Each structure stands twice: as structure tokens, then as C-alpha cells.
């Protein structure tokens, strides 16, 4: 029966891809936000219903509990409301994998749900009410469906073990324990060096948390493995999935971007390879302070991937897949390919034009005919120029960082170096180098990019005609605000 179901699912997936491949893939976009909103409301209530505030116990504790639940519910609401990916290909695909796991494991709560988010970071996590949030950014980094299945099993194991609830309760209990309260009061009353003492107390908490999360990870890995073995997925891939997570913060490719090949030509013979290096810091302090993201747990940094891999090897009695796996299924190959494009669009939609540009330029050499990638490059350049003109450039172009791939840092240095008038030259060169000579704009992205290109190269008449065409064909479209708004561009920093 199960096998039949699998075959059926595989078949339908094939149909999807067969249909979809006729037209080039465009990232998901919908004017209709009602679906995401309804889903978000549903999950917000589910979190609140799931995490019921204890009736007894000290008032302070209960109030704090209530606060934390409220916050968690709002976070879930916001994630879904603003980043749920409800497309017709990736979403059904991951739901299908998820359902197969849930159906094969009767001990899992039937209320368990999966949300695919547009978050481009390769990660996944479970939230309070047992919802698994899967970032679209994780999909291109996996080699097959079995690995995805293991990741979902791991998160479902957290759900089954009620890890989120228990760690929340544990922490709240510790926080409100007589011991901690006394210690806290002692520090506050001590008058001197209060902030360093509180820091030490907080550090104790986070070490304690790390210890607990380590214990939880081990549990989630082992239960996750068991769940996986019930599904018919290839369980040897669990080990390989951990291996991939171990290096997930590293770039997929270390090849430098062909900046000069795309943005340099006779009209703009600027040598990007010769972009100035970052000026030397006068400081020789060894470890620079970590940023928020660096100190936050990622799926990988769930303590010690190596340790977890050893443990997994024991669980699997040595039957593990190691090293790069062949991309056997065309279905998963397509999932990887289109999720990559979703990642590009996601960076773009969140005003991270440097990342969008980087991802698009990485993919473009492999898919030189891809109009969408070309459009994203042009539209990113347009947005960057807008921000530069309105003095918000540094809010959308990241700082160089040791954590970045070298090729991304290189791109950043080139971006820092650009002046307003340079955008004209690089746009002209990019058009020259990638022109596909299509007479009719293929889609909204293409038309928007054609307008942006003309605007960047100050071909005003052509731009005006394209503007009319866009506004007629895609009234109130996705790029209307970016391209035609009289207001200066908004940034994430401005939203705060």
C-alpha cells in the first residue's frame, strides 16, 4: 500500500515537472496575501493553544510564561505572514515528503505541520506548537529527497519529544527559581560591577542552554533516524545529510565571479579584477566581536556536527552514505534548480541586492539563456543605484566579513567602489554581453528589467515607452514601486 502511494506521488511529481519545464521557471509571486494571512492566523492560534499557561505557580512565573508564548505566537505569525512560500511546485513537493513521514510514523501527532519559508539561509527549525519551518535556502544544498526526509524527521523528532516546550519551561523555571532570584537580587544590591556580574549570570544560562540543546540534538538525531527508517527512504542518507550540514556555511563554489566578463566592455573598460582591496585596519586585535548571526545557532552549528556524525554512524551500524551523492532523480534536480531561483528572488525581495546579485551571477554562467537571472541582475543594479542616489547604499550593501565567501567579498569591494555614473557603463556592458535579442518581453521580470536597463543607460525615450507598456500590461505589478515610485527607496533600517 505504502509502495503504491509512493509510486503515485512520484508519478504526480513527474507530471508537475513535465508541465513546468515547458516554460522557464519564475519565482512565486502572488498579489493575494489572504492565503498566507489565514495560515499565519491559524498557526498563531495553534501556538497559543498548544502552550497553555500553567494555572498554578507564582504569578510572576505565569506572567512571564504568558509573555513568552505571546512572543512565540507573534513570531510564528510574522514568519508565515511575510515569508511563507505557497507556490505550486516546491510547496506541494515538500508537503508530500512531510506527509509521507507523518503517515509512516503513527506516533507523530497528526497536528504536525510543515511551512516552507522564503528564508534564503540554509536552515530548518521546529516551533512551539509542532510546526516545522523549512527554509527554501536549504533545498539547493541537499542532494536528494532522502536527505530532506532526514532533516524533516529530525525536526519532527524535536516535536515528538516536546523539546521546544520543555526547554522553554526549564529555562523559565530556572529563571524563576529561588536560587536565581536570590542571586539576581544579590547582584542588584551589590552596587558595584553590576553589569559584568549580570553578564556572567547570563553566560551561565546560555552555557546551560547549550548543554540542553546538545542533549536535545542527540535525541532528535536518534529518534529522527528511527522515524526515517519507517518511511522507505534511504536511511544511509541521514549520515550524509549531517555531513552536508557540517559544511553548509561554506560556499557551494569557490570560483570567483566573472565580473569583468559581465560588466566590463569598451563602453566601460573598468577592470573589476583590479578593484581596490579593503584598506588595512589599524587594529591588530585578534578575535573581532561576533555579530548576531554568527553567535546564533544555525542548523549546522547545532553543536558539533562531527560528534553527531559519529553517533549517527553507530546508530546506522555503519551503513552510511558518505561523500557527494549522485543526483539520481530528475525531480529533485528540478527542485534544487528552482529553489535556487527562489533564493535569488528572496534576497531581492528583502532588499539584500548584494546577495541577489551574487546568487544570480553565480547561476548565470550555467544558465546563460535564463531571462529571469538576467532580469534580477539588471533590477538589482537599478535598486542599488536608487539607494546610492538617496544615500542609503550602505544599508543595502553588506559589510565585508571573514564569514563571507571570498567571491562575495570581492563583489562587495567592487560595489563599494561604484559611483553613480558607473551604473550607466556597467548596465550598458551587461546588456551588450547578455543580450538575447528577444523581440517580445517574455514576462513581467523581463519587461521590468528592460525598463530598468534603459533607465540606467539614460535612454529616456525607450525607457518611457517601456514604462507605459509595463504599467499597461502589469498594472500595480511587482516592480511598480521600485521602478516608478517618486519616494526614495525604503530600507530595512528605515522600517525599524
Amino acid at each position, binding site marked *: 500500500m505504502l509502495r503504491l502511494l509512493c509510486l503515485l506521488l512520484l508519478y504526480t511529481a513527474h507530471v508537475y515537472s513535465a508541465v513546468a519545464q515547458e516554460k522557464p521557471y519564475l519565482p512565486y509571486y502572488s498579489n493575494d496575501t489572504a492565503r498566507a494571512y489565514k495560515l499565519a492566523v491559524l498557526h498563531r492560534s495553534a501556538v497559543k493553544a498548544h502552550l497553555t499557561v500553567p494555572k498554578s505557580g507564582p504569578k510572576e512565573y505565569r506572567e512571564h510564561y504568558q509573555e513568552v508564548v505571546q512572543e512565540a505566537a507573534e513570531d510564528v505569525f510574522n514568519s508565515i505572514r511575510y*515569508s511563507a512560500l505557497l507556490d505550486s511546485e516546491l510547496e506541494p513537493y515538500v508537503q508530500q515528503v512531510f506527509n509521507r513521514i507523518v503517515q509512516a510514523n503513527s506516533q507523530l501527532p497528526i497536528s504536525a505541520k510543515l511551512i516552507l519559508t522564503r528564508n534564503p539561509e540554509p536552515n530548518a527549525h521546529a516551533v512551539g506548537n509542532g510546526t516545522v*519551518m523549512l527554509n527554501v535556502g536549504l533545498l539547493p544544498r541537499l542532494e536528494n529527497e532522502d536527505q530532506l526526509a532526514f532533516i524533516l524527521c529530525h525536526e519532527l523528532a524535536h516535536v515528538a519529544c516536546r523539546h521546544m516546550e520543555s526547554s522553554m519551561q526549564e529555562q523559565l523555571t530556572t529563571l524563576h527559581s529561588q536560587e536565581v532570584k536570590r542571586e539576581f537580587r544579590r547582584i542588584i544590591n551589590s552596587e558595584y560591577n553590576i553589569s559584568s556580574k549580570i553578564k556572567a549570570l547570563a553566560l551561565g544560562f546560555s552555557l546551560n542552554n547549550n548543554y540542553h540543546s546538545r542533549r536535545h540534538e542527540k535525541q532528535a538525531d536518534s529518534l529522527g533516524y528511527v522515524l526515517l527508517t519507517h518511511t522507505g527512504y534511504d536511511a544511509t542518507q541521514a549520515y550524509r545529510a549531517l555531513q552536508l550540514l557540517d559544511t553548509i556555511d561554506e560556499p557551494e563554489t569557490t570560483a570567483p565571479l566573472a565580473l569583468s566578463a559581465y560588466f566590463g566592455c569598451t563602453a566601460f573598460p573598468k577592470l573589476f579584477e583590479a578593484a581596490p582591496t579593503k584598506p588595512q*585596519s589599524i587594529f591588530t586585535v585578534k578575535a573581532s566581536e561576533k555579530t548576531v548571526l554568527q553567535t546564533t545557532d544555525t542548523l549546522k552549528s547545532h553543536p558539533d556536527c562531527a560528534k553527531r556524525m559519529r553517533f549517527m554512524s553507530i546508530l546506522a551500524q555503519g551503513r552510511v552514505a558518505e561523500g557527494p551523492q549522485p543526483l539520481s532523480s530528475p525531480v529533485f534536480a528540478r527542485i534544487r534548480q528552482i529553489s535556487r531561483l527562489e533564493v535569488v528572488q528572496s534576497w531581492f525581495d528583502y532588499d539584500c541586492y548584494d546577495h541577489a546579485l551574487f546568487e544570480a551571477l553565480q547561476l548565470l554562467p550555467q544558465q546563460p539563456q535564463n531571462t529571469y537571472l538576467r532580469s534580477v541582475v539588471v533590477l538589482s543594479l537599478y535598486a542599488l543605484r536608487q539607494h546610492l542616489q538617496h544615500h542609503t547604499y550602505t544599508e543595502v550593501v553588506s*559589510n565585508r566579513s571573514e564569514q563571507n565567501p571570498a567571491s562575495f567579498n570581492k563583489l562587495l569591494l567592487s560595489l563599494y567602489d561604484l559611483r553613480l555614473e558607473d551604473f550607466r557603463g556597467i548596465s550598458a556592458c551587461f546588456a551588450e554581453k547578455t543580450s538575447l535579442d528577444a523581440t517580445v518581453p517574455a514576462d513581467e521580470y523581463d519587461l521590468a528589467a528592460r525598463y530598468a536597463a534603459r533607465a540606467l543607460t539614460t535612454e529616456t525615450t525607450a525607457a518611457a515607452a517601456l514604462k507605459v507598456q509595463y504599467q499597461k500590461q502589469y498594472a500595480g505589478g511587482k516592480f511598480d514601486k521600485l521602478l516608478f515610485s517618486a519616494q526614495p527607496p525604503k530600507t*530595512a533600517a528605515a522600517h525599524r
Partner: protein
Amino acid sequence: MLCIKRAALTACFALATAAAFAQTKTLDGIENMTRSALSPIYAGNEVKGYLMFGRGDKADRKTDNYVLDFYDQDLGKVSNITIQKPANRFTLLKNSFNGTAFAFYFCNLKDETVEIETYDTSLKKLGSKVIEDLSKVDKMIIQNQMKQGGETSSVSGKMDLFPVPGHGFVRNSYTGMAKGYALVMYDDNAKAKWRLASDEKSKLYEMVSLTEATDKYILGIMMRRDGMLSKQVSSSMIAINAATGKKVLDVPVETSKTEQLSLSSFTFDAEKREFIAVGEYYKLDDKPFVNKSQGFFIKRFSEAGKAVSTKNYGWQKEVMALMPAEAKASLEDNYVNYTQSIVKGANGKMYIVAEQFKIVGDGMGIALRAMGGKVSVSKGKIGNMLVFELDPEAKLSKVKFYQKDPSNAILPPGSGLMSAGLLGHVIKSQGDFDYQFMQRNDANTQFNVVYINFDKEKGEDTKRVIGNIAFGDNGQYLEDKINMASAANYSYLYPAKPGYVMIADYYKKKNQLGMKLVKLNI
């Protein structure tokens, strides 16, 4: 709470990414903020980082923890140093970097001392020195300096720690009743190396301000008066051997037969091995700082101190001929120029940046004066910006005029009787000019004059624009205006790495300080 924290991160991943990696920084828990709490760290001409100085919690009954936070030129946090010093009575006067070491110049108000602490580039402490024998004038100047948040002109005096690459830091002080000066060189370990002071037997009052450290000299301008109240000031260019502290040059800017000269800038042209003096000239009977100048001059001296050439540029002659049409009206409108900065480019050109100002006769003030009252309510008006460009042959080649909204300066009692020259310095020391600073790169190929344009009468919130005037080797004069409007309670503008400025926004309610670099379109 790990899961909750991660959920939060997901919800605002775009914000988190932007906030963590953008060239911006948000600091929480800042209870108050003044301009001087944050200061740029210079290496040569360029900003290489920022230092934030703040008081933390109490260390014991009499001691506070003071924190020095370091950021690099991209606003990346580098590290911090915590020092324990007298509670409430300790402040940073100046941070200095000489290429190999940092020196922090503190004022200990409790003990009435100043302290120097030096650190290497890894922020390891190298040495410290407490200076107890402060003169009355030293103390007075420190107090004045703190009132003004470090923004004092050299006219009213300044306690400084001057970085000298390869040697250390020079500390200046005032001896007698401001009759003389003393300079002491401290090496990177805060050990005193040499002392140079005015001759106690001399009848002259001497005041020195250091301007530049060259390959082997420390340059400065010496002002001499024959009495404390004397308005007759003579200026000399001095050069000190950085290694020995011996004065190797002390050349007065001679009064010529036809006019009086007042020195405002003195630099060394390493290519030609010549000292260059720039200043303004006055009619023979007029007095510098008292009467309005006739124009500006440039004088060159050999390394041995011999005058090589002198050139005058009259406001009404050479300057007027090149004045853009739109600027002429303002000159006729009785505006005078205050020279804000003088720089020399790698292209051999010299750029002189000036800002216009004038006194506006106030009906009330005049009436009071007519009735014999001594209260002056005259107002100063700040006008437009001007840049004078001189070619390598010292010929005036360009005059650029930049219009901005006039703003007002409230002048102290007695200003109505003051001359224009002195008034310029008063306005400068009150911080009422719109000119903020000039930025330049180490190669001296790119300059950027930064000013703020807002209507001071209507309040800073009505319209705040940061004006940038950029020029340099490419021969172009470019202007870029940044709209500074923000919801912040206070916004401060700081110098930044070449091609950028830094804006710090303080939000009182949120106890939050946001710092951001702004890339200029220049």
C-alpha cells in the same frame, strides 16, 4: 528559549541580515549621548575607526568603570577596554593615534590632573603617565574645552595630545598666567622624551599651536604679544626637530612695507623642501583680528628660513575678477570671509575654504547702545561657502561659490563693538559656523568639505541637509546633498573614511544609538 529565539530570527531574517552585516550599527542601552562621546580615530589624514567613551557601572564606592569601545572604519566592533577611574569625575579629552600606538588623554577632575594612557594596536596597554603640575590656565582651558565638547579653536587655547609618527605624542601646556608654553614629547610607552618651553626671562607672551608632523619636523604657529592685553599679535612659523625637541626654525611672518600679515596656516612642501605660510593681510594701520582683512597671502620659505616668494590676493581685485556672478551680490551684502581650512593637493594646487559671515544690526541693540546701555544683542549671520583654488604657480585659478540658507549666530555682549576679524573667531569658538570639517585621503588627491545647512531660527528639525563639496585631482567640483531628516532626538555628523560621512542618530526613548556610514555621490 532557543527555539523562540530562532523563530524570531526567521521572522525578521532580512532585518537581522541587514542589521548584522550592513555598514550600520545599532547600540542599545545608551542612556545619554553627546557629540564628544564618539570620536574618529585618524591615521594620517584618514579616519580608520571610531572610539566611543562612556561611563559604565560603579566599580566600588569611589570608582566607576569607564569603557572605551573601538570600531573600525566600517563600524565593525573591534574590541573594548574597561578602566577604573574616579566616579563621575573622569573624562576623555582627546584620542590620538600615531601609526603605532594609541594615546588617550584623560582629565581627572577629582584630583585635578590629566592622565595619558598608551596602547598598542592590539589594545594592549603600553604605559601611562599622570601629570599633576597643571597651571591655573591649563585647568581653565580644560574646563572651557569640556564645556564646548572639545570643539575649541586655537585662539582660546586647547589642551592637546599631538600624534607624531615614529616618535610619540606631544602634549602642550600653558605656563605662567598664559604667558608661555611648554611642549613635552612622550614616547609610545608614555615616557617623557624632551621638553621645549618658552624662555621665562622673555618679556613676550607666547602661544604655540602645532599643525603638522612631517618627515622630521613638527610644525607649528607661534603667536607673540608684548603684553597680556596687547592686541598686537605677531605670528611666527616654527619647526621642531621631532627627535630632539630642538627648535630649528622660528621665522616671523614679517610685516611688509605696505601691509600687515596674519598667519593662519603653515605647512611643509616636502617636494620643494619649502615651508608655506598662508594667511590674510591687513592695511598697515589696521590690526589683525581687529580689522577686516584685505585679502589672503601665500609666502614660501626655504628650509633655512629664507623667504623665497610672497603673493597677495586681494578680495576686491584678484578674487573679485574670478568671482561667479551669483556670488557678487553676497560680497556687496557686506559679508566677510572666515577661512575654515587650507589644503594642498598632490596636483600642486592649493585650496582655501572660506565661509561668509556678517553682523546684522539689530534695532533693539542699537537703541540700547544709544541710551548708553552696554548690552549688545547684535546677531551674526552665517552665509555661503567659497573655495579658492590656486594653481601650482600660486595663481588664483578658480573661485567656487556654494549658496546655502543663511543661519544665525547669537553673539556675546560687546560683540557689536568687535571687529569682523575677531568676530569670526568668536563665531568659530561658539560652533556657530555651518562648516563642519574637511575630509581628505592620504594621497591628497580627494577633498571633501562638509557643512550643515539648516535654518537655525526655525530649529534644526525644519530642514537639515548635509552639504558636501568635493574636489581634487580629477579637476571636478562636485556637490552632494544628504537629507538628514530622521526621527532621532539628536543627530551627530562625524568624519569617515574617504568618500563617506558617518551619522549617529540618538533615540532617547529607546536608549538607542544608530551609527551609519553614508556613501557620498562625489
